[in-house]
């Protein structure tokens, strides 16, 4: 059974992240990226904070082993950010690794054991070429029963799209619309991997190939947007990014020492589903998203309609449509249409992926859940800059591991 409240309340008092990028960090290791994010998080604490004040570290890193040939990464990071002898724990839940790290940090403080913890994540992916990255990401799926039959990670979400299109009659244009929106948002975010609209990219790539495009859809329908796993094309997929994010959590009773404007974590949730997508009767929804979000909403005492700003896990465009339905923003089969109508834009009913989402902000796998918290922290304090959502009161972070075998959620309030 799950309690409806935590014994001790927890707030976010600081957050930092590197820019996510495919080229900028080629000369750095994961340790340098995470240190940069952790230092920025410490510096963001209003009344001052040094990392040595942290009681523990919870770190998400999906595959330091494959990407950097380095294991025991929790101890390495604790050492590198200078917090020895404080305990450090690596949390691995595929793309939900740092969403899990955030929840673990909340539970550790709520238990009374610690007052302040650093949580976060990092992924240094550009050490491998695309085919090796594809192999590594596929390890988040069932290697014996899905990957051995030829399924890639994009292939699994393509299967979700295939079933979704068949059930609801939706088309690829709804997916393309998500990509256009998230790139528009990413263009406003200084931390985003791609700070360019689809039209900016169409012009740049078009000039190189001596092609011109009158609008986004013409470009997205062209050979410059090749198929990855049908029906998903390149611009339906998040990029391969390097990056890190760190968040400082504190018990409410000590948070006031550090800031007058903490962001409260009012609900958390996590759920598991079958490892293999093929074991689920309905693959047009992620059951774990529904369970994790309901648990988090119940703990927070809110309904989906109360959410003003939502970071949802859009590793592929279809994933954002499915997530906005699973999280209760729109009825099943209506997520794509709602987005087309602008209801998930910066001034929509709920601003979905105001930071550009995984699509434009980038997706260094283990950093993503914490990077969502970074943006929610900024949004709820009115510090998000050009992609600020007006009057943001309630925010959520929804982080999915692989094709939904793990989902984490938090609800935040200013």
């Amino acid at each position, binding site marked *: 059974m799950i309690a409806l409240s935590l014994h001790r309340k927890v707030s976010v008092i600081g957050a930092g992240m590197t820019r996510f990028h495919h080229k900028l960090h080629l000369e750095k290791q994961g340790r340098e990226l995470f240190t940069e994010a952790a230092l920025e998080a410490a510096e963001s604490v209003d009344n001052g904070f040094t990392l040595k004040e942290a009681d523990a570290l919870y770190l998400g890193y999906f595959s330091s082993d494959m990407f950097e040939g380095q294991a025991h990464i929790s101890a390495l990071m604790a050492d590198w950010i200078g917090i020895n002898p404080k305990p450090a724990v690596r949390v691995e839940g595929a793309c939900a690794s740092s969403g899990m790290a955030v929840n673990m940090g909340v539970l550790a403080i709520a238990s009374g054991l610690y007052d302040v913890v650093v949580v976060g994540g990092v992924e240094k992916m550009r050490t491998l070429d695309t085919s090796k990255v594809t192999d590594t990401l596929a390890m988040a799926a069932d290697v014996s029963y899905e*990957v051995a039959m030829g399924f890639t990670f*994009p*292939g699994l979400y393509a*299967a*979700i799209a295939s079933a979704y299109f068949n059930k609801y009659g939706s088309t690829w244009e709804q997916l393309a619309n998500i990509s256009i929106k998230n790139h528009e948002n990413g263009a406003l975010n200084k931390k985003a991997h791609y700070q360019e609209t689809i039209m900016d990219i169409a012009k740049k790539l078009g000039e190189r190939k001596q092609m011109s495009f009158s609008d986004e859809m013409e470009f997205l329908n062209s050979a410059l947007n090749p198929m990855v796993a*049908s029906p998903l094309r390149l611009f339906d997929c998040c990029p391969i990014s390097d990056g890190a994010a760190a968040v400082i959590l504190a018990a409410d009773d000590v948070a006031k020492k550090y800031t007058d404007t903490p962001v409260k974590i009012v609900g958390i949730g996590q759920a598991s589903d079958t490892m*293999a997508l093929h074991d689920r009767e309905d693959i047009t929804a992620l059951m774990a998203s529904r369970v994790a979000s309901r648990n988090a909403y119940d703990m927070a005492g809110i309904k989906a309609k109360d959410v003003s700003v939502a970071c949802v896990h859009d590793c592929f465009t279809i994933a954002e449509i499915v997530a906005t339905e699973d999280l209760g923003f729109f009825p099943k089969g209506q997520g794509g249409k709602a987005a087309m109508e602008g209801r998930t834009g910066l001034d929509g009913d709920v601003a979905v992926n105001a930071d550009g989402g995984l699509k434009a902000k980038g997706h260094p796998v283990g950093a993503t859940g914490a990077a969502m918290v970074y943006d929610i922290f900024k949004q709820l304090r009115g510090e998000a800059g050009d992609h600020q959502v007006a009057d943001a009161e309630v925010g959520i972070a929804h982080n999915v591991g692989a094709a939904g075998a793990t989902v984490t959620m938090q609800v935040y309030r200013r």
Partner: protein
Amino acid sequence: MKMTEHTVKSFMEGLANETLKGSKCTNCSKLMLPPRPICPSCGGKEMESHEFNGEGTVKACSVIHIALTRFQDMRPHCVGIVWLKEGVGVSGLILSDGKEVEVGSKVEAVFLKEEDRTVLAFKPV
């Protein structure tokens, strides 16, 4: 239960012998493919072996253009989730010359022998 039954190895050996070997819960009769030691429905731990006949319909499919290292020479190849007649899902290659097949198409299992393993595939019928 012998721990050599209802394992990944027993499934793979089944594929090598051109059979789809799963398990059936002796308590609630739930069928499982691949085989498992614990029934996800009732928690039962007594399993018997069950052979699936390999006929089903395509529930979802995708043509993979950016392939795994191991499948590079088949690129592009179609993969799918097949819902078997017995009411369980399974992943497999779809032998359709690298083209999508319609959701709902009828297929049957075939077993692709490679040097060191057998890959589960389905062909349209």
